């Protein structure tokens, strides 16, 4: 029997704090660069405002920047780690799955802080330029029978309504960033060569589509096209997660007289967004759990 006094393990909170510090430090240079870009954009917007142009509308849900940030964040989080094999991180006295999860959590906290900063920055821009911050607006609604393939729209078919953007949808950027982050983290941790898999998948999708088109197999082409569209712009598709469909429901239409305006094909539905968030985040958590299995202790 050993006579050696046993050493203690670090507390998980301590591990998360340290991973938070390390991740924050590792992205400080891109963060400074982004802050500089934001400062330049702020000056340009204010200059525009002073020249008499309209104010900036506070509509963070329309921006895909948080979702992009969420998708790219795992690269920054894992860039310096040897994710597979006997890297330094795995030699530390922390359960490997918990350690990986602690790092994912640290990256998510930083992401949410960054998204909060981004939303506050948009709000400040809107306030400075006296833009609309309430989400209350007059919109043009296209009829249900609207066909995007028809080149010109009859103006009389559009309804003009006053619509108030549901306040809960102001949370869209946070959930968009979170969903994208969890999905991207699952890819980063699940695959030894994630970029090869991403490029390979995209290439496979395009190749399948091209072959389908080439052999004029209408049924195949229609099915694959419908599947991709459903994933992208379906009721619970990616666009619902990333912008509550505010992106895909807005479209530019051309009237018979040649005038072009922005109109809505429908209105964002809060429950659809909530279901999409649950579906995509659930999918991401499932993927992340599977990916973490690759980093468990060798029992």
């Amino acid at each position, binding site marked *: 029997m050993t006579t050696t006094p046993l050493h203690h393990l670090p507390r998980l909170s*301590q591990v998360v704090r340290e991973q938070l510090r390390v991740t924050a430090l590792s992205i400080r240079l891109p963060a400074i660069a982004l802050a500089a870009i934001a400062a330049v954009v702020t000056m340009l917007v204010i200059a525009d405002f002073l020249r008499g142009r309209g104010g900036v509308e506070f509509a963070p849900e329309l921006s895909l920047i948080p979702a992009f940030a969420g998708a790219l964040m795992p690269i920054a989080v894992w860039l310096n780690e040897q994710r597979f094999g006997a890297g330094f991180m795995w030699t*530390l006295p922390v359960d490997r799955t918990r350690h990986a999860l602690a790092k994912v959590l640290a990256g998510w906290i930083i992401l949410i802080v960054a998204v909060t900063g981004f939303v506050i920055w948009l709000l400040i821009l809107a306030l400075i330029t006296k833009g609309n911050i309430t989400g209350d607006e007059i919109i043009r609604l296209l009829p249900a029978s609207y066909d995007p393939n028809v080149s010109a729209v009859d103006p009389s078919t559009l309804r003009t309504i006053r619509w108030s953007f549901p306040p809960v949808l102001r949370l869209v950027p946070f959930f968009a960033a979170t969903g994208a982050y969890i999905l991207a983290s699952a890819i980063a941790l699940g695959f030894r060569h994630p970029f090869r898999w991403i490029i390979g998948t995209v290439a496979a999708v395009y190749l399948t589509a091209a072959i389908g088109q080439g052999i004029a197999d209408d049924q195949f082409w229609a099915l694959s096209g419908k599947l991709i569209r459903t994933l992208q712009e379906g009721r619970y598709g990616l666009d619902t997660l990333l912008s509550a469909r505010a992106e895909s429901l807005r479209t530019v239409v051309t009237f018979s007289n040649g005038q072009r305006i922005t109109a809505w094909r429908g209105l964002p539905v809060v429950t659809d967004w909530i279901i999409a968030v649950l579906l995509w985040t659930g999918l991401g958590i499932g993927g992340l759990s599977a990916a973490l299995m690759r980093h468990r202790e060798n029992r």
Partner: protein
Amino acid sequence: MTALAVQTTNLSKSYDNQSALDRVDLRVPEGSVYVMVGANGAGKSTTFKILMNLERPDSGNASVFGLDTGANGPEVRAHIGYVPEHYDAGYRWMTSARLLQHAEAFYPSWDSAYADRLVKSLDIRMDRKTGGLSKGEGRRLQLVMAMSHRPPLLLLDEPTEGLDPVARRQLLTLIAEHLADSPTTIVIATHHIHEVESLADHIAALNGGRLVAQMSRDELQKNVRRYELELPENWKAPAGLVATQTRTSPDGRDAQWTIIGDERDVAERLTSSGANVREAQPLAFEEAALALLSGERAQ
């Protein structure tokens, strides 16, 4: 009975059908300095990785201070200071000071005053980025990280590799001081046997993944000897002798054989075969260790 710091039983591991470890039974007594020798690919680094639970053995098991390495990976790693064979800076943007701070967060037993002392002794420049460190500087930093939490077990895989002669001497002095200062078991895998000669009290020889021999220094001195022999005409060596470095005079009457085995038993067998044993001399540590390795081949 001496408690064991490290024990492996029938430990086997293969990579792509190439055996890296073949039924290895290591017994490392607590408080010993256990030197593992063997050519490249002998299985030294694989053994360390299994002890750190960075690799899963194909069969057999390993324990550190009585803890099964597979079932208690984090607890086992908390007790080990590990210097891997290859220097991996990991966070190349970090300064040495920040990297030490990072490591400190994971070891509640970290001794900051001792870390400072080691940093001064090894002349580590704390403001340098780890990505810009030379191999030797990186090695020294790794050693500080491995020793500063005063682990009861140090696993040093080629610790002097990449160091200049002065740094080598410094490092070995430091290990000796560490031993005097903290009750530690040290397992050193090295090609430079002469460097650790003054520290070693146990030795293991690995060859092609098999444990050829393991014994204490005293047993090594007793069991590996150079025999001066006077041989009769047409003499035939007794079967089963593990002899290395045989040298015979041109007339075939005088010979100098290095033989592994109990001195009395070997002498009796030689005598009964007709040889006259003039002298049986113990070998220097390095010579004896090399004899163990080449003895395996000769057998």
